[in-house]
């Protein structure tokens, strides 16, 4: 294989989407996105299911088609064994960073930052515009500027005063103003319309002030207990004063509002009934889609359209239904 041939194929390879299924196989989408080619790279040999490889590898065992090159260009050879999903992944907001409180969605600052990083956040700067003093009502104002890899710039301001923060956060007004400013700038950069949880003025009303409790759909909810017992336990666990990280996913029961506690308990029960898609279900979905010739991109699109969420965040029930749909697909 000549250098010119490699270069020619490398140029084409750069445009191809590479992915690795859960069972460790590499798949490279055709340039038109209609077919997935299976690329096998191991110590002994490299192969691809495309026609170019079949034709040329007979005479040249070292031949590399553009699909093999695409895999090699995406993952360093020594990392192939441990690679999961390759660099062509679409940036997305991870489900664990979304919070639904009283029926309204909020995003955590950590999630916005994560997404911005995926999108190529190059620089994030904050300037303190106003120091909190008695004269200005102890209001801190910060200005944040975010710069993306392509040079695009987004900026916004954030404010924090004892009136729009919880009692605990009131001691850290500058930091909160900074977080809010950065959150707003990054939300613009990532085109996220929903507010950051940290922007809420009455955080205490919606999340309470008890023990921080990580929220994740993947973590099974505690086994169902009588509502009263669950409430009692929550109250007993509540410490006198706890430092709370604003970026930490938090969900607590408001000790003042019994109704909201009961709702919370019900929500936990609902979560129990809706566990996340299992590993095996995910593998089945990838297997079926591959057999049906459905690209990962199409798969994601269908998933969002039909179930309103990304493939990774499907519930077990939805995954089950999706498997049936894929099974019936021609």
């Amino acid at each position, binding site marked *: 294989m000549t250098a010119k041939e490699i270069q020619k194929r490398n140029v084409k390879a750069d445009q191809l989407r590479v992915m690795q299924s*859960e*069972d*460790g*196989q590499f798949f490279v989408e055709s340039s038109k996105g209609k077919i997935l080619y299976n690329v096998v790279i*191991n110590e002994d040999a490299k192969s691809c299911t495309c026609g170019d490889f079949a034709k040329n590898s007979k005479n040249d065992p070292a031949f590399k088609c553009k699909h093999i090159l695409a895999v090699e260009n995406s993952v360093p050879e020594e990392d192939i064994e441990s690679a999961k999903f390759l660099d062509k992944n679409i940036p997305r907001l991870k489900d664990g960073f979304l919070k639904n409180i009283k029926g309204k969605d909020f995003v955590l600052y950590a999630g916005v930052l994560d997404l911005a990083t995926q999108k190529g956040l190059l620089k994030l700067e904050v300037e303190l515009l106003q120091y909190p003093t008695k004269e200005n009502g102890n209001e801190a104002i910060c200005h944040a500027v975010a710069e993306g890899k392509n040079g695009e710039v987004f900026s916004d301001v954030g404010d924090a005063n004892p009136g729009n923060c919880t009692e605990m956060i009131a001691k850290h007004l500058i930091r909160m103003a900074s977080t809010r400013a950065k959150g707003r700038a990054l939300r613009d950069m990532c085109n996220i319309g929903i507010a950051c949880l940290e922007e809420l003025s009455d955080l205490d009303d919606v999340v309470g002030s008890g023990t921080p409790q990580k929220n994740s759909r993947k973590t099974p909810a505690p086994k169902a207990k009588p509502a009263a017992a669950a409430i009692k336990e929550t109250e007993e666990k509540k410490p006198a004063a706890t430092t709370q990280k604003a970026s930490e996913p938090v969900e607590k029961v408001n000790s003042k509002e019994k109704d909201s506690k009961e709702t919370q308990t019900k929500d936990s029960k609902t979560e129990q009934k809706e*566990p*996340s*898609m*299992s*590993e*095996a*279900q995910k*593998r*089945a979905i990838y*297997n*079926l889609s591959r*057999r049906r010739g459905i690209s990962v991109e199409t798969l994601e699109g269908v998933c969002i359209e039909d179930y309103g969420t990304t493939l990774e965040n499907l519930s*077990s029930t939805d995954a*089950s239904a999706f*498997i*049936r749909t894929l*099974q019936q697909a021609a």
Partner: protein
Amino acid sequence: MVLSDLRKTEHLSASSIGTYVECSLLYKFSKIDKIPMEQKSDAMEFGSSIHKTLEYYYIEKMIGEKLLLKDIHEFFETTWKIRAEDKTDIGYTKGHDFKSLLMLGKDLLTVWYNKIPDDNYNILGIEEAFSFYLPGIEFPFIGAMDLIEEDKSGTIIITDFKTSGKAYSKDDVDQNQQLTLYQLALKSMGYVGREILLKFDTLIKTKTPKFEQYWTTRSELDEHRLIRKAVQVWDGIQKGVFIPNDTSWKCKNCSYKVACDEWFSERFNERSAA
């Protein structure tokens, strides 16, 4: 209880339902008259040897040992030799003999070994025998599930090991009644309400050997269809309805060809005498 014990009693199975539907006279010869097969097919003996090897691999995996490919080759070679070396009752298909199938087996196992996903599912059972009754059928359904696993979320995965001459079609996978029966069996074992996924791990005997996993599921309607079919088959067996399907492409290599020809000629001789 192991499958060989269960087989000692009157029973039905996924394959016997299939056999009855395809050629009920063949069912009669093998299951009712219990006529020994005139010859064993090489594909069946070969498939059983591969099957035994995979079973061995998973038994070792369950106890925490990851076998090396050379161990797997050795086990297969021993198994294949016991089953096929110097055996005259095996009918080899054109282009195959003991040695060529030994080589093919090793090639297939190499591909399988290199492609089998390194998942960490919890192994619940290997060659797990079952026996359960379906409504309206007096005999139990028996069988053995090659591999039962459970993932971290509690999804159950039933795997059936296969060797095949060609890749499976969508219908081969989605309409396979053996997997439907396995799902019914699993539910009878107390797994009702669990997410159940089914798959074939298929070693494909193409010129370039391949390994393919085919995942599938079964709905309650699929289960109902199988039960309806099984009840009809049972009814036919009870009433002694055994119709030969002598236009099938399978007749050529049937293990009861002589018995079948004799069955046809019985009435012919009676008519000639009259």
